């Protein structure tokens, strides 16, 4: 069993994914801040008790503080994520501080699906998720073309079916 060659997954996420992730984070934060601003307007209009303002201010600061690290993490995500598809396996490697490597046999994949949000459409990207008996894996950002071909590849390989009860 020992000393067998273990291929390391080599495919990377597209470079633009950093941009998209950062923009998604920013957009999320801006929307939340906007909602808070709306509540603040209501506060001043209806002259609600003063503590409401303090809570709103606290929440706003919290959101800003939380946004800062989430603007940095996409870069690390991009840097540390690798994936690979062979005829038999799907390999995913993620994580900077805690490195995780997953090996999923194609035959055990029960469904593949792709998803595309507004921002992702702009950069021609897609996310792809893979379902197995135990869990759900998502590869968040791939170029549309790649994502589609990967999806088809997985679907194709997954169909080289093992006898169900081997």
């Amino acid at each position: 069993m020992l000393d067998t060659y273990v291929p390391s997954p080599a495919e990377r996420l597209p470079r633009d994914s950093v941009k998209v992730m950062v923009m998604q984070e920013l957009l999320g934060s801006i929307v939340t801040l906007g909602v808070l601003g709306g509540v603040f307007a209501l506060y001043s209009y209806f002259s609600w008790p003063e503590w409401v303002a303090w809570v709103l201010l606290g929440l706003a600061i919290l959101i800003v503080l939380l946004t800062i690290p989430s603007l940095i993490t996409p870069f690390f995500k991009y840097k540390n994520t690798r994936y690979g598809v062979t005829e038999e396996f799907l390999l995913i490697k993620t994580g900077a501080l805690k490195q995780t490597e997953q090996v999923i046999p194609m035959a055990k994949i029960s469904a593949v699906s792709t998803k595309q949000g507004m921002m992702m459409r702009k950069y021609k990207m897609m996310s792809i998720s893979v379902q197995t008996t135990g869990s759900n894996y998502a590869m968040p950002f791939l170029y549309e073309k790649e994502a589609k071909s990967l999806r088809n590849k997985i679907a194709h390989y997954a169909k080289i079916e093992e006898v169900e009860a081997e």
Partner: protein
Amino acid sequence: MNEQRYHPLWMLHELWNVLREIVSFILFYFVVIRNSDLWLFTYGKYFVLVYFAVRLIAIPVQWYISTYQVSSHAITVRRKGLGEQKQTVPFSKVQHVHRKKKLFHKWTGTTSMKLEVASQEDKTIDFKVLKLEDADWLEGLLVHLPAAPDESENEVEETKAEEEISPDEEVEPEASYIEEIEESRHVHFTPSMHHIKKATFSSFSFLAVVPVFGSLLSKFEKGTGQTIVFSDFLNSYGDTWWKLSLWGIAAVLACLVGGFIWTYIRYSRYEISSDSEGIYMKKGFFEETSFSISKKQVQAVEFRQTFIKRLLSLTEVKLISAGGEEEGEEVNKLYPFLTVQEAERLVQELLPDYKVSNQMHRLPRRALILRLLTPSWVWIIATPLLYFFAPYGLSEYWAWLSGVLLLLVITSRVLDVRYSEYTINGSIFQVKKGGFHTKCLLVKRNKIEEMEKSANIFQKWVGLASLSTTIRATPVQVVKVDDLPSHWTHSFEGWYLQRGEEVERLPADSA
């Protein structure tokens, strides 16, 4: 086999269930809320009457519209009402067969049978009443048929696959076939007196006699209106030491005999048998349950030892399979009081592929050091909580309590590292975990659904890694071992990547 209705006794079985509900409702109504004049109860009873009337009428209707059909590789259940419900389950999807013979079934020479399916779309096929011959026949088909590829996942090739593999032969129950199956079975285990004696002691069932005796006594007191005071009893019947010791001996004997009888009822009727394709377990004194599984559908084998069983070197063996409910867990246990040697021999006989290795690796010493250096969140959170919110009377001892907690945390970590063992033996991954109780799992490489290895910074510094493997059970089981040497997890991955070696594939042209 033509489309067929369920056994007519199905109606009687359902009727019995509805009647039971009616009786319990009547009891509730007349005993509990007899005097309530809330509108809900005054008018509620009419609703309930209508409800039960509908239930009763529905029984024959349901029987009439439900059918099932068995073909050479699949079973179809159909319910034709205003719309039509149809479910086809290929035999290859059936994970195991679970039968239960209640008194009703015993009296009528029938059995209930569940075909457990693991996927989410398909439901368990549940025959509430089935003729014994039919059950045996169907079980034989399920366990023995070579797994046909299932079309549902093979959509594109569906038509082709169907032509090739399933000329949907009609199959009919044949007496000769059933006998043939029964004859080829080999019985591996039935409990001897010795086993039952051991079970009596290791399950502490003799202690169960005490509450039983207590409730009998209180019934006797109520019945006769006498109160029995233990000291009075001793004064009149136990005035000398030899009388007293006689009573003592009698009490101990009564406990032992009672415990033995209790254990006998629970564990004496047990039979584990197998043939080339399947494993069959039967048990139960009053109600008989049985569990049949195709050897191919066994997902893993688990040895479980409680602390007491470990002292007596007994073990419990479980065949892990997908499908079924939690309660099904009880069913897939091989006899729970086997000695370790017996258990290993039995597994070897039933599943020759699963070889138990006695040479397992321990976790390295640095794993223990790392584990001990990791901060314990439980302790860190609990200590201030104890300081501020300790219940009245304990607040002075918060430091002691916190110390005890820390000691427990440390002990459990040490035991965990000490009893984690692992190895790869051919195509079997064998892993053992636990502290006071231990659990040893054997999984075949091709039954591991997926694997994940991970390492955080600290683990990376000292060259350790965590490994988790997923096993198809209900619910899905993830076995995680922390702090293995990272070179070993690397070779584990290599080993796993070669799982193709054991995988049986469909002929190339059908895929």
